[in-house]
């Protein structure tokens, strides 16, 4: 047994991170891996509290059955299949099955309302709807009379549906059965269909939540996905011993690439987190070697640590302070001065690492991490610095759905804080006259589905107009200023980039998120969402009575606390950039709310509209 494992990994070393030229579509690459890697673990899923291994063979079998099943139900080349589920292996079985059968996968966020589901289903014209459970089934049942193209509804988890029958609905298990039957009848069919999709064909449509107007469907080809992963791995090589935790929605390009495509290249094992709430515990159990998260997660870890340190003994506090200062010096040498630290400092760091830093990394669950990544939203450079001091190699990447994910990232050992790094190989970046960032290269998406007009406005002469404003610094690193549309021009005519101020605010352990307002106004204000856990703790410790979340946001002592944090941030900015007034958002917003993006950011426009009264209040003279 032991020997077999070794051989398998030995073989893998040759393969990992590379693909031969003939593996130029996702299905071809996928099937090659299934055949090569067979019994090796592809995923781990927690079932009744125990991590269960799923091999590449099982992954392949399931995907094959899905492909043939969908085909016998009438899936033709280019037909759309919608998947609405939280991250679980069936998501990827369905995705790969669809792609192999020549279909196009459309992921729908499981938190979407029936109305949003109806919009996406209608817009993409999906003929199949693969639903996680009863809840997702009910969404489609309520709106299906508006969806004439819909042929079948497939339910992954039939719990609670024993007495339900509907000619249009079937279970995932039944789909697999149909697939197996077809395979028995026509054993050669699968090998034939897997060769059908071509590299330049449309593979997936990713709906991006438009901050204005309805969501847009970005079309991504096989080639798009493979080329971004190729470039990524050239800079950040992986290995078959890698472990990753998948918890960001698979509907998002970031997670789709890292949980879907990267494992096919490196042999990395994907561990499915149980729920969003269990992520901190799952990280500790899995101890991933690669950890990719959105800024909100990094901010949360940070504030948990900061508050934990407040509760510690004076000795612990002293040790932490000392270790962090050593870590800071080392990272300063390495990343900012580009010099090797002295031997004395190296020994000091070893000591600090052994006594303090290692334990903190273990506490978070990142003690095995080779590198970590923050993406999908801007993050405060101070936060990156903090993690570098801890000895966690955290880097930032920048990209958007339209560029098939990352186009720039910090190269190894070249993390420059405040920038998003350099372009990935084969990608070009230019800055337009008005400061807009333009992207060129193999990762440019195919356009917006059924919206040639918008496509023409977005891709001009082979350049993707990102809508972001930025510049390239003297070392060739890209610096993002802000979204073009978000830049505030005050009544005094001063240009202000809100995200810079917002990131500083979010750095406070008591502030979860913030939106800076002030376009065409005399001064800047902010809507602030408090970090309820930490603020409640503060209230408890300082005997500030409160009952509900709303009452907490109204407590004068809490407003004073946040005022102090805002004052701190104001010190870092010029007079015109300081926040004169702020209001606390008095409802607790969760991922289920429209006001929050799937990557857990507040949606500026929706929030500004919804809390208009609070904003108006701040501009009353």
């Amino acid at each position, binding site marked *: 047994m032991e020997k077999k494992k070794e051989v398998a990994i030995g073989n893998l070393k040759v393969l990992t991170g590379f693909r031969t030229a003939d593996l130029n579509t996702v299905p071809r690459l996928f099937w090659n891996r299934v055949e090569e890697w067979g019994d090796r673990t592809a995923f781990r899923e927690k079932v009744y509290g125990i991590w269960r291994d799923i091999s590449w063979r099982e992954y392949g079998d399931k995907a094959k059955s899905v492909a043939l099943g969908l085909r016998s139900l009438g899936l033709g080349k280019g037909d759309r299949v919608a998947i609405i589920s939280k991250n679980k292996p069936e998501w990827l079985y369905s995705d790969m099955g669809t792609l192999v059968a020549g279909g196009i996968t459309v992921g729908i966020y499981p938190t979407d309302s029936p109305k949003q589901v109806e919009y996406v289903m209608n817009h993409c014209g999906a003929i199949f709807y693969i639903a996680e459970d009863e809840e997702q089934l009910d969404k489609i049942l309520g709106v299906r009379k508006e969806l004439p193209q819909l042929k079948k509804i497939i339910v992954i988890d039939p719990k609670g549906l024993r007495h339900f029958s509907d000619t249009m609905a079937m279970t995932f298990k039944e789909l697999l059965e149909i697939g197996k039957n077809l395979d028995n009848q026509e054993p050669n069919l699968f090998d034939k269909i897997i060769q059908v999709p071509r590299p330049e064909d449309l593979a997936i449509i990713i709906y991006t939540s438009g901050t204005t107007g309805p969501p847009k469907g970005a079309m991504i080809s096989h080639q798009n996905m493979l080329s971004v992963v190729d470039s990524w791995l050239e800079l950040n090589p992986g290995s078959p011993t890698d472990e990753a935790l998948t918890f960001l929605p698979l509907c998002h390009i970031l997670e789709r690439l890292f949980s879907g495509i990267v494992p096919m290249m490196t042999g990395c094992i994907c561990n499915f987190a149980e729920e969003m709430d269990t992520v901190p515990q799952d990280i500790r159990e899995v101890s991933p070697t690669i950890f990719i998260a959105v800024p909100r997660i990094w901010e949360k870890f940070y504030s948990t640590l900061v508050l934990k340190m407040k509760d510690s003994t004076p000795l612990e506090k002293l040790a932490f302070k000392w270790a962090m200062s050593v870590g800071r010096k080392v990272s300063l040498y390495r990343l900012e001065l580009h010099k090797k630290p002295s031997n004395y400092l190296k020994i000091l760091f070893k000591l600090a690492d052994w006594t303090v830093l290692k334990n903190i990394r273990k506490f978070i669950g990142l003690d095995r991490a080779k590198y970590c990544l923050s993406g999908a939203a801007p993050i405060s450079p101070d936060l990156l610095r903090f993690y570098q001091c801890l000895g966690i190699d955290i880097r930032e990447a920048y990209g958007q759905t339209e560029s098939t994910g990352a186009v720039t990232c910090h190269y190894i050992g070249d993390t420059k804080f405040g920038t998003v790094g350099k372009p990935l190989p084969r990608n070009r970046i230019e800055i337009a006259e008005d400061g807009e960032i333009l992207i060129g290269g193999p990762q440019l998406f195919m356009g917006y589905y059924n919206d040639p007009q918008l496509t023409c406005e977005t891709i001009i002469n082979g350049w993707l107009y990102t809508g972001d404003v930025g510049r390239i610094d003297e070392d060739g690193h890209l610096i993002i200023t802000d979204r073009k549309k978000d830049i505030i021009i005050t009544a005094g005519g001063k240009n202000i980039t809100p995200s810079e101020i917002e990131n500083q605010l979010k750095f406070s352990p008591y502030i979860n998120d913030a939106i800076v307002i002030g376009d065409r106004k005399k001064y800047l204000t902010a809507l602030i969402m408090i970090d309820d856990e930490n603020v409640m703790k503060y209230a408890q410790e300082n005997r500030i009575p409160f009952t509900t979340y*709303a009452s907490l946001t109204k407590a004068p002592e809490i407003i004073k606390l946040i005022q102090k944090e805002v004052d701190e941030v104001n010190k870092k900015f010029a007079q015109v950039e300081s926040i004169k007034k702020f209001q606390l958002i008095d409802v607790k917003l969760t991922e289920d709310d429209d006001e929050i993006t799937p990557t857990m950011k507040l949606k500026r426009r929706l929030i500004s509209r919804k809390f208009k009264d609070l904003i108006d209040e701040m501009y009353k003279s």
Partner: protein
Amino acid sequence: MVLLRVSNIESYYGPIMAIRGVSLGVQEGTIVTILGGNGAGKTTILKTISGVIEPEKGTIELMGERIDRMMPHKIVRLGIAHVPEGREIFYDLTVRENLMMGAFLRKDRKGIQADLHMAFELFPVLKNRASQLAGNMSGGEQQMLAIARAIMARPKLLLMDEPSLGLAPLLVKSIFGVIKRINQDNKTTILIVEQNALMALLVAQYGYVLEMGRIVLENTSEELMQNEDVKEFYLGIKGESARGTKRWRRKKKWR
């Protein structure tokens, strides 16, 4: 006037924090209810108020006077009576003796006699069984006895822990009828903890919803009964789905 004011209390069961910072107020002469599922911390709040559990943090004031960290018997003397969950009557004493235990701290014979009379009037069953051993009574009768015993202390504030627990629906109705009478006739302020949310909201003027040791919602009973989350999670009123039956529950938002 605020009779009881609880501020930021935190109570532990061993290493487990059962209430994680709870503040609430009870107006004199009202019935206030705390709703919450199993393990939400409802009982712990009552036990902390009556002094059985000492809070780790926070303060409790009865008519402006601090009562936290006081011994339970002193708190009873100040006018708080506790009807514990599961009755906890003295099985080997008679019904009358049980009732007299409630008046243990009182010296005014006349008053005690009058209250005994009132208790018998509220619960005629108890009068019929006055000399019977309490342990031989049915669950419903024992619950009545527990309530009657508590009012024998002539409390300003009556704490009731799940009076409907384990009782037949008809009996629940009559018990709640009596609770209302105690409040109206005796002007006793009542803080009642319940899982039977509908009954509790019908008699109470104000309510708090407790989850995981924290208050997530507070409002008048009328407003609470209109709240979407209270409706779905506490009153069992479910939204219609296309299939007619809906088993899954949406996430609680508490707003």
